[in-house]
């Protein structure tokens, strides 16, 4: 016999208006910052240039940070070695681009795009494979031990940086972007670099694709559930360890992709570039909320925009602007804007 639930079963809790506003508040921060930038800068053309530049920078940081936040959320692993994948990705990708100079040096959109695609694929394949090896050799023996994780992953980062110098030499490598990505377009009196526009579009497409995978596929569901309660996911019959390895490899490949994009953005690469970027990447992961891809996306845009606005308005403050942002957000929400994993 089946006993139906009684009519007076508790009803779905309706959130109050302030609670609903508080829930979407992180989403409003980006437009609020853009408006603040517009009011502070005064000149529309400067504001537009800085905004596109900030969004492009934010998108690239998001690409580098998205894998790290999932890795932390899924298996509670703090991976300082993530920066190594950024550097290796940049070196492999830029090497591929330099080898394909005959494609990048001509003003042909088709050849330029093909060269960039080849560079991106090469970088992602190498950093994905490197990530797989890094997880097996360095991360796996230290599951559950945060201090050891920090020590061995920093060690791994240093070793890989030294290996980059052995393979590519100690000097920085300068490069020029493919012909069709050079120059700027003019819009509303503002000169906007083509590459920055491309980075914004590419970052947006990647974010939407990532959201679709996480929201609409079973593997995405497993990842999201695993970030919240890995033990329960295993009790339902899923091998979370395999999922984690997959996420680690994908996160490493994305870091490699971010490295190629950042290298093309700066037009110079160094072995230590990944390590330098990790400061911003960690800020984004922390203010976004551990384990949250959406939080990392919003955090990355805030970091990118704020850095560009402050560098224009008060250059001396640019260096501390992101640390100040992190402090302010953690005072407002100690677990980050959209935490999935509760602080341990």
């Amino acid at each position, binding site marked *: 016999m089946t006993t139906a639930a009684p009519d007076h079963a508790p009803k*779905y809790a309706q959130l109050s208006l302030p609670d609903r506003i508080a829930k979407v508040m992180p989403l409003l921060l980006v437009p609020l910052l853009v408006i603040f930038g517009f009011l502070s800068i005064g000149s529309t053309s400067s504001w537009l240039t800085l905004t596109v530049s900030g969004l492009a920078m934010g998108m690239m940081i998001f690409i580098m940070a998205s894998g790290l936040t999932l890795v932390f959320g899924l298996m509670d692993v703090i991976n300082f070695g993530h920066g190594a994948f950024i550097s290796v990705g940049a070196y492999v990708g830029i090497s591929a681009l330099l080898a394909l100079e005959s494609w990048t040096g001509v003003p042909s959109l088709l050849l330029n795009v093909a060269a960039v695609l080849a560079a991106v694929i090469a970088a992602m394949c190498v950093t994905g494979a490197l990530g797989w090896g890094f997880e097996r050799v360095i991360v796996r023996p230290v599951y559950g031990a945060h201090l050891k994780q920090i020590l061995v992953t920093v060690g791994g980062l240093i070793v890989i940086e030294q290996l980059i110098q052995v393979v590519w030499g100690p000097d920085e490598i300068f490069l020029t972007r493919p012909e069709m990505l050079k120059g700027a377009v003019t819009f509303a009196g503002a000169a906007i670099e083509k590459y920055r526009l491309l980075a914004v579009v590419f970052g947006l497409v990647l974010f939407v694709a990532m959201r679709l995978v996480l929201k609409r596929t079973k593997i995405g569901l497993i990842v999201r559930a695993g970030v*919240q309660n890995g*033990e329960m996911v295993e009790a339902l019959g899923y091998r979370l360890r395999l999922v984690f390895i997959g996420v680690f490899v994908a996160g490493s490949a994305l870091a490699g992709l971010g490295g190629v994009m950042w290298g093309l953005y700066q037009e110079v690469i160094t072995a230590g570039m990944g390590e330098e970027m990790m400061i911003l990447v960690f800020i984004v992961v922390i203010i976004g909320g551990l384990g949250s891809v959406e939080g990392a996306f919003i955090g990355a845009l805030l970091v990118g925009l704020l850095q560009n606005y402050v560098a224009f308005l008060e250059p001396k403050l640019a260096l501390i602007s992101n640390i100040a942002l992190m402090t302010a957000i953690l005072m407002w929400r100690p677990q980050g804007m959209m935490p999935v994993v509760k602080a341990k």
Partner: protein
Amino acid sequence: MSDPILELSGIHTDIAQYHILQGVDLTVPRGGVTMLLGRNGVGKTTTLRTIIGHWQAKSGSLRFNGAEITTMPTPARARAGIGFVPEDMGIFSDLTVEENMILAAASGPLNPARMQWIFEAFPPLKTFWRSEAGNLSGGQKQMLSIARAMAEERQLYLIDEPTKGLAPAIISTMAGALRDLKAKGASILLVEQNFAVAKALGDTAAVMDDGRIVWAGEMAELASDADLQERLMGLSMEAH
């Protein structure tokens, strides 16, 4: 009597420096409900978590359907046919009710006939199908937790205090669903502090104390012997 579905022999489990299970010997018959009873802190939850594999037994033997599973990882135990409803319900609160159920069907899409049965047992799940599970009430979360275990056919269900903190009306819904599950031939190992529910559902019972099974037998025998209850658990069912 048919072969037992689950046998624990001399199971010892440590959690950090604490030696919690100190030689558990337990047999769960095939079909029906076995109640695992005892005071708080005697090792009931640890026993269930050791069976599903969240905590590994330090020594002893765990046999499911006659096969040794002592060192088997948790996902393999689940795929072998063991369902688990933890004490904290283990709901994925940022996922919708629908997404929680889709995940519960690990071997393929949700079975419409089973879903029909689940919706009949727990109508609120249909109402809040697309709502975030974290916004459900405590009783609805417990319904979802049990429904998730029911989404696929399992041979053995490990259920930890499903009526804890729930209103009497919801408890009756839970009891009805568990009775349904039992009628379909499933075996259930149920930890329960509510003696009225234990008495109504249990076929057999095992009582734990200090990390060991100190009594095992028919539930009816335990329910009818106030002295035995007093001696084993320091309680009398007549009081409940």
